[in-house]
């Protein structure tokens, strides 16, 4: 006796092979989510007590990174400027801009400003600024075009696969130390060569390998060892 209508055939076949595609789609979705700004915060502008504009201070006024991030060359921590640093100028200019009231308040009361952290790594990752800066990794290699950010945001995903891009092939990213804090630095090309150690380089490959030698970079094995970043 006939139990099912004709249509069941199509349905049942679909139901048998359909789940495979659904599962695949889900997996793909998860993978995307993991890398999305929702998880990584990449490109997210977080709210801050004071809408500080790096664009204005760096491009507009030409202040060097190290004026505020003083310990970037000696410490693992680049350093967030104390209120004092802000007041160096803002006790003279914009002295009563309402936007800057939190800063003045902090200076008056001795209560620290509480910024929201932009570039944050998990606690089990031990990143050190001084070594990267010393070996010719430019600020904007990781932090992006900070000089064009009216509001600061995190450029990269800061996920392990991202770190490995460079740790596996540093020569593709390195630049001369004196260029590290140059926000407009570009890798050498025939049209814009880069001078280093008296030699002029027209392509990153040759410059990179020269820098690797000069800055005594450790081998890929060394800098992809787990304890390089995890303790």
């Amino acid at each position, binding site marked *: 006796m006939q*139990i*099912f209508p004709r249509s069941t*055939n199509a349905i*049942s076949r679909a139901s048998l092979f359909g789940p495979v595609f659904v599962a695949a789609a889900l*997996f793909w979705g998860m*993978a995307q989510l*993991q*890398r999305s700004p929702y998880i990584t915060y990449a490109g997210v502008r977080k709210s801050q007590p004071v809408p500080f504009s790096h664009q204005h201070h760096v491009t507009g006024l030409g202040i060097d990174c190290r004026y505020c991030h003083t310990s970037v060359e000696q410490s693992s921590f680049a350093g967030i400027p104390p209120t004092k640093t802000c007041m160096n100028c803002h006790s003279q200019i914009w002295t009563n801009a309402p936007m800057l009231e939190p800063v003045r308040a902090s200076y008056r009361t001795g209560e620290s400003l509480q910024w929201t952290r932009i570039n944050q790594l998990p606690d089990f990752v031990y990143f050190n600024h001084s070594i990267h800066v010393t070996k010719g990794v430019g600020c904007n290699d990781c932090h992006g075009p900070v000089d064009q950010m009216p509001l600061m945001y995190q450029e990269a*995903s800061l*996920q*392990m*696969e991202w770190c*490995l891009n460079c740790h596996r092939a540093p020569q593709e990213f390195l630049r001369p130390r004196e260029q590290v804090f140059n926000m407009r630095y570009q890798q050498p090309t025939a049209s814009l060569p880069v001078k280093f150690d008296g030699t002029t380089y027209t392509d990153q490959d040759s410059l990179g390998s020269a820098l690797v030698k000069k800055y005594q970079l450790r081998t890929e094995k060394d800098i992809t060892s787990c304890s390089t970043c995890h303790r």
Partner: protein
Amino acid sequence: MPDHLDNVEVANQRAPVIEPGYTFGTITDKISSIVLTRPTSLGWVVGFGAGFLVTMMLLFALGYLFIKGTGIWGINIPIGWGFAIVNFVWWIGIGHAGTLISAILLLLRQSWRNSINRFAEAMTLFAVACAGIFPLVHTGRPWLAYWMFPYPNTMNYWPQFRSPLLWDVFAVSTYFTISLLFWFIGLIPDLATLRDRADNKYARMSYGLLAMGWRGSARHWARYESAYLLLAGLATPLVLSVHTVVSFDFAVAIVPGWHTTIFPPYFVAGAIYSGFAMVLMLAIPIRKIYGLEDFITDRHLQNSAKVMLATGWIVAYGYGIEAFTGWYGGNRYDQALLWNRLHGPYAGLYWMLLICNIFIPQLLWFRKMRTNPVWLFMISGVILVGMWLERFVIIVLSLSRDFLTSSWGMYYPTRWDWMTYFGTIGMFLTAMFLFVRILPMISIFEMRTLLPEAEVKPE
């Protein structure tokens, strides 16, 4: 597949695999009626209920484990593995009989397996399911266990393929998948039978959907048979590999008492040993309750008993060789281990396991024992206990006293260890109860092939 020669033999001397006087129809009705028409007995409800409650206890124990961590168990340093892994190996071992019966005996054209392979396979599935729980929950952070699978991840870091645990993950999941497929395609023709027998509309529809519209066409049968045979061919090396891999968990490590080349064969033998014990412990009550003595005859009991006797001796040989090499090898750690087994703090368990696995099973030499269901049932129980003890001795005893005397320790199971162990037994029984209630526990179409009428004389 039908094997008339065997049947002729059967007809002549040996106890038959199926009592005479059956037709295609009567076989079909007898088996399908258990599922379709037989009313749900009180016994079933009670049994199922009990099993279900114990399963709930398992869930409770696991919930607490997730909340507090593996510290609720008796494990420590040096004994990092306790009941969890013991149970894991025990269950996996039990599973093996199912595949052996359905695949290996099929290849060996042992047609008597036709009446027990179905629920033996079901047993395999449920046992492997129980086993599968442990490797997951015994980790310190089970919610990260997915890191053992090589999926593309943001860490750009992969599993470590030299680890036997990883081999386990692949072996066990493969084993489960293949067993499931094997069991299911075995069911298809019978599901069709149930579809055509069922009076209840919903039963008819659900069996119908599962049967996938099977209609017994000659073309289908031809492809079906070759697929079935191929699966058997694949499952056979698989089942051997699975317990080999499980044994690698130990053989690959350097712990004295683990680091042994004899493990793979004797683990596989042990697995089949305990597996058949479990088959008997299920078959004997089932055939009694459902009056299937005509299908699961004394011949089946005898054969299973013989298999146990044989594998039991392989296991015994394993123990013997272990002890011998321990003594003769002159390795100070192995010698200490041997002494420790015979006289150490866990010596009692070791002697008990020898009694359960070697001495008592010798009763099977007697035909009386082999044909007496009650005795068989009890001996099987003893063997299951013995095989559990064997794993306990291998894992816990070896770890408790390894290289540095300063780090020797003892392991005492906590109530949570016991709850988890018994919990899985409850889960296993629950599944078994459901199975016998809703699916044909004996392969109807393969039983048909055992009848003389099934033969076709070539012209």
